[in-house]
């Protein structure tokens, strides 16, 4: 490890809380969202515990409704949306570009504080009893019928949204203006393309959820009729506005994860990526198409037949670029030199699980089947396959891949591989039965259910306990590695990419000299050719 680096350059709480270093801000985000991940995970554990038996006998109905609401809110807004961009993106993006920092370091710090305030409102809502509207806040239930702290939570989410907007803004400007000499757009690592596309969605889409939540708060607080028919409003309008953001939001979540996979698959196949241009542009295509499919959440909600046809057609279109990525990653392994370190295990798990999750999206995009499976456990299984099997897996893969760079320490490989395997098994056991449950007709958000659904629910809950172990293990061994891990060295994976050309951990200004880029990304066939 180098003598001086970003972690020991300055000491004291002020040097952390007032830092402008994108790397330290990434670590601040890491600690924060890890807390919310385990909070949301605890709610999930309680949900699966309740669902072991058909009767609602562990919790009162209102409590159960709060559990699934707070599970969704915490996981989506306070974990998934920041995860790869705010932790891995913040840390790695500037270094990958050869820059000293992001374009706006102070705004970067501000974004973390805004996130803390927003998440703080979320915790306040939790302490105030928790909200029970579902993370989707459908009206008029949320504006006129529940007595829980909806406004507090809505305000928290909309504030946290601004953290997202600032991160996106920062990434876009940095990518345009702060690339090192020789780093042309065609030489950008795919991680940058992916985060860039996600940033476009962040800045264009997030304001819509902010407005929507403000309107919910106004209707609830001041009885200004927007969504409640008793006040002259239209409840379906809420759904249009909500999903206009929340659908692109899922692409905010998954695109950065896909960027991580491109980095890992190339490194552990020792090969340049297959179809670089197609993968790069597929990220942009997903971002664009992602904005025109929102009403596929509303096929039975009261939209016209013609609208439904259009949105169904477009939803099939948005699936294609993702399929292209999966094929390209697979082709990258062809004639490669593949090794199975932990990051690669997570990347391979991602490809498999995301494929299943994405393909099950086709069942939902298809109108004839969506009528039956909408609002059932089929949907729950689908989105957990893409969000957990996809996104969380990619996030964990990225954390393992860049942990040596971020901390200068190696995590222990054997427990890590074991944890990856346990997570994979636990995940499938938890969520595969839910596809079956959904087709059988078990609706979502059911506290109690008819007894014939019990076997599958028990399987799912059993899987959840295994999955929990798989998630807790990294927390333990990563913390262990900080003290006892082997020193990583600058480039433990022998990977290409500018981040591996600097020390582990990097100095505060990332590079001792400005790098000059002369080669394509993933140039694994030859020696690194970076001229200083």
């Amino acid at each position: 490890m180098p003598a001086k680096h970003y972690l020991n350059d300055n000491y004291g709480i002020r040097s952390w809380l007032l830092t402008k270093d994108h790397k330290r801000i990434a670590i601040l985000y890491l600690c924060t969202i890890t807390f919310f991940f385990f909070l949301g995970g605890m709610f999930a554990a309680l949900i699966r515990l309740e669902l072991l038996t058909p009767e609602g006998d562990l919790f009162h109905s209102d409590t159960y409704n709060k559990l699934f609401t707070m599970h969704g809110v915490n996981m989506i807004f306070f974990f998934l949306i920041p995860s790869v961009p705010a932790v891995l993106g913040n840390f790695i993006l500037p270094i990958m570009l050869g820059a000293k920092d992001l374009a706006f370091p102070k705004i970067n710090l501000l974004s973390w504080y805004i996130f803390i305030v927003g998440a703080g409102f979320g915790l306040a809502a939790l302490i105030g009893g928790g909200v029970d509207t579902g993370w989707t806040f459908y009206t008029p239930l949320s504006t006129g019928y529940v007595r829980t702290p909806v406004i507090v939570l809505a305000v928290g989410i909309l504030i946290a949204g601004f953290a997202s907007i600032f991160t996106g803004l920062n990434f876009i400007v940095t990518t345009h203006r702060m690339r090192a000499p020789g780093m042309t757009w065609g030489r950008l690592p795919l991680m940058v393309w992916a985060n860039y596309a996600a940033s476009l969605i962040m800045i264009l889409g997030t304001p819509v959820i902010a407005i929507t939540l403000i309107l919910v708060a106004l209707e609830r607080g001041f009885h200004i009729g927007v969504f409640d028919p008793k006040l002259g409003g239209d409840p379906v309008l809420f759904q249009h506005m909500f999903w206009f953001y929340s659908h692109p939001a899922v692409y905010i979540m998954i695109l950065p994860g896909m960027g991580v996979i491109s980095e890992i698959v190339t490194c552990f196949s020792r090969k340049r990526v297959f179809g670089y241009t197609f993968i790069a542009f597929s990220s942009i295509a997903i971002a664009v198409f992602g904005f025109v499919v929102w009403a596929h959440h509303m096929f039975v909600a009261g939209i016209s037949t013609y609208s439904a046809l259009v949105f169904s057609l477009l939803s099939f279109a948005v699936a294609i670029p993702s399929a292209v990525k999966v094929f390209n990653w697979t082709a990258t392994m062809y004639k490669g030199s593949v090794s199975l370190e932990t990051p690669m295990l997570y990347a391979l798990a991602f490809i498999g699980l995301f494929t299943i999750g994405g393909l099950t999206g086709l069942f939902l995009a298809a109108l004839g089947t969506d009528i039956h499976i909408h609002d059932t456990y089929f949907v729950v299984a689908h989105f957990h396959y893409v969000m957990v099997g996809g996104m969380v897996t990619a996030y964990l893969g990225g954390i393992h891949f860049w942990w040596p760079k971020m901390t200068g320490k190696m995590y222990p490989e054997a427990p890590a591989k074991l944890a990856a395997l346990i997570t994979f098994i636990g995940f499938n056991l938890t969520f595969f039965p839910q596809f079956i449950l959904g087709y059988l007709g078990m609706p979502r958000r059911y506290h109690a259910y008819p007894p014939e659904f019990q076997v599958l629910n028990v399987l799912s809950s059993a899987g959840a306990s295994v999955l929990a172990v798989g998630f807790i293990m990294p927390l333990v061994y990563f913390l262990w590695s900080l003290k006892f891990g082997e020193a990583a060295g600058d480039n433990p994976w022998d990977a290409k990419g500018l981040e591996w050309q600097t020390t582990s951990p990097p100095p505060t200004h990332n590079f001792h000299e400005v790098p000059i880029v002369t080669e394509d990304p993933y140039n694994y066939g030859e020696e690194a050719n970076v001229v200083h």
Partner: protein
Amino acid sequence: MEFKLPLFPEQASSVAGQVDAFYLFLVLLTTFFSLLIALMIVFFIIKYRKRPDHKAEQIHGSTLLEIVWTAIPLGISMIIFVWGAVLYYHLQNPPKDALEIYGVGKQWMWKFQHPGGQREINTLHVPTGRPVKVTLISQDVIHDFFVPAFRIKTDVLPNRYMHTWFTPTREGNYHLFCSQYCGTNHSGMIGEVVVMKPEDYAEWLASGKAEGSMASMGEKLFQEFGCTTCHRPDAGARGPSLLGLYGRPVRLSDNRVVIADDNYIRESILNPNAKIVSGFQPIMPTFQGVVSEEGLIQITEYIKHLSQQDSEPLSNRSNPAVLRDTEVPTIQQELKGRGNEPAAPSGKKP
């Protein structure tokens, strides 16, 4: 603990088999592609595993391959889309001769009314062999009417009617689930659809304690609420006559033409000033909070009933807004021109 592991719910409606067939096709398709990718990956990581003597081959890509693996999924997606769309169109459009049942959802129960006036709570009796159209509305939040055995579902909204339809094909008792989260007892808002042979259904109808058919209940309400004061067929009436109204085009004071369907009638009672019939004053009071959703449904049934009777030739003054048959084709064209297909009127022409 019951140890059953079924994969499909029972098929109890005419479309269930079609939905299941489509689903099975999708399952086979997705299994095929998932296995293809998975096996390829496993094959590659074994065959091309890192070995000391072995170097990776740096392949940029292949535009041809990209085109192929974009075009094939696109083509398959279009097949899925069309199949799904055709099935959906069928699921959305009830046949004309469907038995019409009304349902009201509220936190946390279902109330149904049969045309003969029979009422049920949380249970719905239907006969096999004929289409049943259920028209639904909510008294409070958004609910959802879901019968897995029939493969149908619709959200139930608080501000307008939604409908779904099915033709039951198999006797039995099937779950009815509310499947839009609606608050505390969402998972308790479960009902039962009881499918009976037509003879048994007729017997059940006869044995019930119906106070009267829905239309006659509606007529009672019509008189109780004083609607007859203004809505009369004579020349000096303050409100438009409702004879022959249901399902016909109506011209409004702002020259728009709308179809007098369930939603129009409901809106006219709850929010009369939203649409003023041409030639009349905006003097109708609102009945919001006065008439229940069930009452609204009964009044609508009564009004539907009025369109099935023969009515006298109408004088110009009393209902300038209910268009005569000779005018109807022009209006239909006008609506078509504005991209607004009029619904086919469901009442008989006078």
